[in-house]
Each structure stands twice: as C-alpha cells, then as structure tokens.
C-alpha cells in the first residue's frame, strides 16, 4: 500500500471509528440523519474527494476516492457517500456546478424513466421514480434522461417530491419521488448519461461490497478464534477452517474484481470491467454472507452482534444497479455476439 493510501486509510478509519458506532447505525435505521458523521466527512472533503479543486473538490485520484468509499462500507456507515460522490462526478463531467451537501440520483430502478421538458420558463422534469437511495434526506437529486433526442444530465431539488420511503434490507432509505414539471436548477448534455448513471452505480456498489466482505471475513475470524466448543476454539476444526478459506477466496476475488474496474474507470466507467465487477462481487456477497453466518451460528443471527450490519448491506447492494444476472447476461451477450475467437484477445487486453 502506498504511503498516501495508508494516510487516507488512517484518516477515514479515524472518522468512522469516532462517529460510526452501533448507536449511530441504529438511529440512522430509525430515520435519524447522522449529522456528526456527515459533517466530519465534509470537513476532510471526502464527500467530494475526487472532484477537481476548481469544482470545490479535494482533487484526489478516483482510485483513492473509491478506496475511501470502500472503507466507509467496511465500517457500514449509514450515509449516501457513494451517491454523493457519484452525482458529483457526473455533474462535473457535464460541466455543471456541484451543490453542497448530500446528493442523490435518479432514476435508479430498471424501467423507471424521467421525462425532460423544455418550457418557456426553462427546463423541467416530470415523472415518478422509486428506490431513490437516501432520496428522503438529500436536498438535491442528479437526474439523467433524454431531451429532444439528446442525453442530458440535470439537477433538481427534492423538496415536495417525496411520496414515500421504503427501506432496503440494511435499513437504508429508498424513496419514491414524484416530480411534477419541477424546474431544473441546471441542465447540460452528457452523452450516454442514463446508462452511465447505472454503470457508475454498479461500480460504487461493487466497491462497497468488497469493503463489506472484508469486514465479514474479519468478524468471522475473530468469532471462530473466540468461540469455544468441544473444548477448543471452533477455528481449530477443519470444517470451519475450510469454510473460512472459501470465504477468504470470495473476499479476495471480490476485491480483485472491484479494484480492476476502478483502475480503468478513472475518467468514465468502463462497462466491461464494471459488468465483471458487479457480477463477481454480487456473487461473492451471497456466498460470503452465507459462510460468515454459518460460522457465527446463532450469535450472528442476533441484532446484538455486528455481523448483520455488513451482511444486510451485502444482501441489499447486490440487487441495486443490476443484480448478478443482469450484468452476467450483458457480458454473455457481448461475448457470444463477438464470437468465441474474440474472447481471448479481449481478455488479454485487460
């Protein structure tokens, strides 16, 4: 790990260590905004880590920003950090000003669409979108769609648009927002904006899953070494050792796939690498969570143990921005369409 990365990890871990305990997570699930934690992140500029300094950002490399996101997921931080980073990056790409505060984005659910209208008093957005992450607490949403046959990106206030809040399995809010000819605060063309939103989202969730998986492995190793049955720690049983070895494999694979996607997405997300990452980390999430829970026995099934903060996130994130099947089938169709002879040349370019 580079020195820079090491310092970044220390900073991020210090913030989450100080402001992200189970009390904060529980009250966030009950609907309270973790103001102190968000403020601490803002103070060091993590919410806009990868934005250029000219745009009010910290000018950090994209890879480093994604590393910070991964650590936030390791700590199961109940915040729209991924969404804020993502929206900031796309707004910046479209040349728009990034507002302060937490940001959300829409549409995120497959099949949801927003209509963009050009009126006499400026552009507006129309339509209902569901499962908008943290849509109830973010003052602004980045929205993507098509206007006059051109892909566009806009910024819209969420005030008055809230129609309801569901929760994902981790208790993170997923809001229904209805825009009724809501005037846009800003609008700019951005080639491929709606598809890019989905791919950026899948990249973030892949990175987050890699972070949460890392934590489930740590919890599992700790527990297996502490828990004594039949007169010895269960970590001494070969059956448990082999389960943990498989968990370590899933964690390493998720990490490798997510890192690979981040590396080639510095300017814009690379669709092939992101498809690989979302498919692979999503699979690792399910398999990893299963093993971690089996190792933890009944204790891991309780609210008291911390394992569920990680595993409930894994079970949620794998289905957001396209599940494994969605990305696998895209990869599969791409590969089959290009033909078997093109597969190896394509793989070996990576």
């Amino acid at each position, binding site marked *: 790990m580079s020195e820079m990365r090491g310092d970044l990890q220390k900073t991020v871990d210090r913030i989450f260590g100080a402001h992200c305990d189970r009390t904060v997570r529980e009250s966030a699930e009950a609907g309270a905004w973790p103001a102190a934690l968000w403020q601490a992140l803002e103070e060091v500029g993590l919410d806009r880590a990868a934005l250029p300094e000219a745009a009010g950002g910290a000018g950090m490399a994209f890879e480093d920003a994604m590393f910070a996101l991964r650590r936030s997921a390791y700590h199961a931080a109940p915040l729209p950090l991924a969404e804020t980073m993502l929206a900031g990056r796309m707004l910046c790409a479209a040349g728009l000003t990034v507002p302060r505060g937490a940001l959300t984005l829409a549409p995120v659910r497959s099949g949801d669409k927003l209509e963009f209208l050009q009126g006499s008093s400026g552009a507006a957005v129309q339509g209902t979108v569901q499962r908008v992450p943290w849509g109830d607490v973010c003052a602004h949403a980045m929205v993507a769609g098509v206007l006059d046959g051109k892909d566009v990106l806009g910024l819209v206030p969420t005030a008055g648009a809230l129609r309801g809040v569901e929760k994902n399995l981790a208790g993170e809010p997923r809001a229904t927002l209805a825009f009724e000819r809501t005037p846009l605060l800003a609008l700019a063309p951005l080639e491929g904006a709606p598809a890019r939103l989905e791919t950026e989202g899948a990249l973030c969730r892949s990175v987050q899953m890699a972070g949460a998986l890392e934590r489930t492995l740590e919890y599992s190793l700790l527990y297996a070494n502490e828990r004594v049955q039949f007169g010895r720690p269960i970590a001494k049983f070969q059956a448990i050792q082999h389960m943990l070895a498989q968990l370590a494999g899933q964690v390493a694979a998720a990490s490798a796939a997510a890192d690979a996607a981040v590396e080639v997405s510095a300017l814009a997300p690379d669709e092939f690498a992101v498809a690989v990452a979302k498919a692979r980390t999503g699979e690792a999430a399910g398999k990893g969570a299963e093993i971690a829970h089996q190792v933890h026995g009944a204790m891991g099934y309780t609210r008291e143990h911390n394992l569920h903060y990680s595993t409930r996130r894994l079970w949620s994130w794998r289905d957001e921005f396209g599940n494994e099947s969605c990305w696998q089938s895209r990869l599969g169709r791409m590969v*089959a369409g290009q033909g078997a002879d093109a597969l190896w040349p394509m793989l070996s370019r990576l």
Partner: protein
Amino acid sequence: MHEFRFDPVRMPPAAQALRAEVRAFIAAEVARGAFTPSRNSWSSFDPAFSRKCGARGYIGMRWPKQYGGHERSALERYVVTEEMLAGGAPVGAHWVADRQSGNQILRYGSERAKRAILPRIVAGECYFSIGMSEPDSGSDLAAVRTRAGKVDGGWSVSGTKVWTSGAHRTHYLIALARTAPKEEDRHAGMTQFIVDLAQPGVSVRPIYNLYGGHDFNEVVFDGYFVPDDMVMGEPGMGWKLVTGELAFERSGPDRFLSTFQLLLESIRAVGAEPDARAANEIGRFVAHLVTLRRMSTSVAGMLERGAQPAVEAALVKDMGTAFEREIPETFRQLVPTEPTLGEGLSYAELLGMGILRAPGFTIRGGTREILRGMIARGLGLR
C-alpha cells in the same frame, strides 16, 4: 495474519509485443497443420513442438544466459504460458521442466547439473517428471518411504513413486526421499535427487487412468545410484525445496484454463444470440475468468519481486480449479449433448473429456483440501 492482497501488475510493453509474437507463431503452426488446438494443452506431449518453442526462446525464459536461458521477466514468461494454453498448444513435453524442475535446479542444483541439464531444457529437448507422491504418501508428503542411503560417491535410492505423469517419456524426475530416520520434526531428514530415467536401477510401469489414457506411471527404484552432484541443495533440505517448488506449480494459468477450449466451443455451440440462461452462464464464467487472471498475474508479479506467494498461489489454485470443473458441468445442460468417449475432436467428445478429466483438476498439484488448509494457516487458524 496473512494479508491476501492481490495487487495489480502492469504488463510491460515487452510482454505485450511478445504476446503478439507468440499468438502469430501458434496461428501459423495451426495453419500449417502442425497441431490441432489441443483440448488438453499442457498434457499433450509433442517433442517436435517443444523443440520449436525452445528455438524461439519460449522455454527457460527467466534463467541466466550462461545456462542457455533468456533472462526475461516473470511477466513475459506468464504471457507466453497463457498464450500457449489459450491457443491449445501441445506444450506438455517441456511443461514440468520449464515450470518447476528447471527453476529448482537453477537454485539448488550443482554446477554440473546446471550445465548438463538446463541448456537442454531450454532447447526443448529435455523433459521432467515430478517424483513426490508414493503409494502411502499423497497429501501427506512427509510420509514418503522412498529411502536414500549414503554410499561411496553418492546415494543409493530404493522405493516406489506413483502418479508420476509422463515418466514413460521424460528424461528425468526429481525424487523426494527420506535420508534420515523420522524425528519429532517429521519434515526433517528428506532430500531431493535428480534421477536420470535412462540409468539402471529404475523402472517405469504404466498406471492407466479412468478413461484408459496413459499419463500416470509407477516408478520403482531398486538401489538406484545418484551421484553426489545430483543432490538438490544440502541433504535434509528436501521439505523446504518441495514446498518452494509447489508455489511455482500452483498459481499459473494452467490452474484455470484446463477447460478453456470447452468454454470456447460452448460459446460457438450456443451461437451469437444465446438464450437468457446461456447468456448468464457465459457472462458468469467470463467474470470469473477475468478475476482469476488478475489474481494469477498478481502472483506472477510477486514471484518477479522475489516474494514467496505460496498462500496466494494456493488460493488461486483452489478457485481456479473449481472454475475449470464447473465449465463441463454447466454446459452439458446448456448444449444438450450426450458426452462421448474420444479424442475431443467433436463437441460431444470435448465435453466427454472435460467431464472425465475434471476430477483430476482439484487433486493434481495439491488437493483442494490441502490448499484450504494452507489458506486457513495463512488466516492464522492453524
């Protein structure tokens, strides 16, 4: 605890140029009918092809020039290896010598052994087998019973090795033998010897595999004489040498590309517009393959830096061989075919070979269970 970090490696420009060169070489060989892309790449024994590889500088790539080597990087070697496997080239004759035996001789062999053997390996003319397993010693390698006793000018070896792939047509093997009685430290008292299979005192008998193929052998030593300068390292160092050798054996692309040709043929069989299920499965395999390849090249990078990535190699092999085994299991249902015994020339035969060879993937070079034990040790559990 071990960190299990698979840091990325960037292929140097020289490696990319080499990739194009190897690919063109393989295509030209296929075009002129020298071989049909093999279903069984690193088990296909073709001395003529090995000599061509030697002439082109594709063997002993990392070794010093004074022993005929080419002083190229681990990543360049990696590129050649994966291109050969992906192209289905018959690299089986020189595979073991190039992958592990030659490296061991370079590090632990006598000057005479290095001079006599390495240049011939590099030329693609000298082939090796692995002499580790025995009838009563497989996963538990420290239980070897082959003994070597000191005699004037060398050692006298007696005992039996099994599952010795290729020994009926290779020139040498490196045998692990007990040279001192078992002590409390059961890993002490073992030594590796270079055995010339053409000398008297060693006999080779076939052990046919489940589909009737002849790859395995039983190798019996009856007072076989090994001169002192064919001892690897110091007597008693055997365990250390064997574990080091296995790191070379475990992390390469040969641990996840065994059924790559079947994957390609299956993609052809489902066609350009696969149904939903076939598209998912192909996509899943591609996602796994990309990830495995990244982890495996990362281990090559560790070897390049002189690290000892034995635990990472075990992890890549465990996941890679599981992947290889899934390919026939999945496509047999997507491309409804009755698998057929044969050479792998039709899809049904290729599938048949995949199914019949699959059990070996998770056994050879260290069983899945041994690998998971090593990973668990890396996790601090043992």
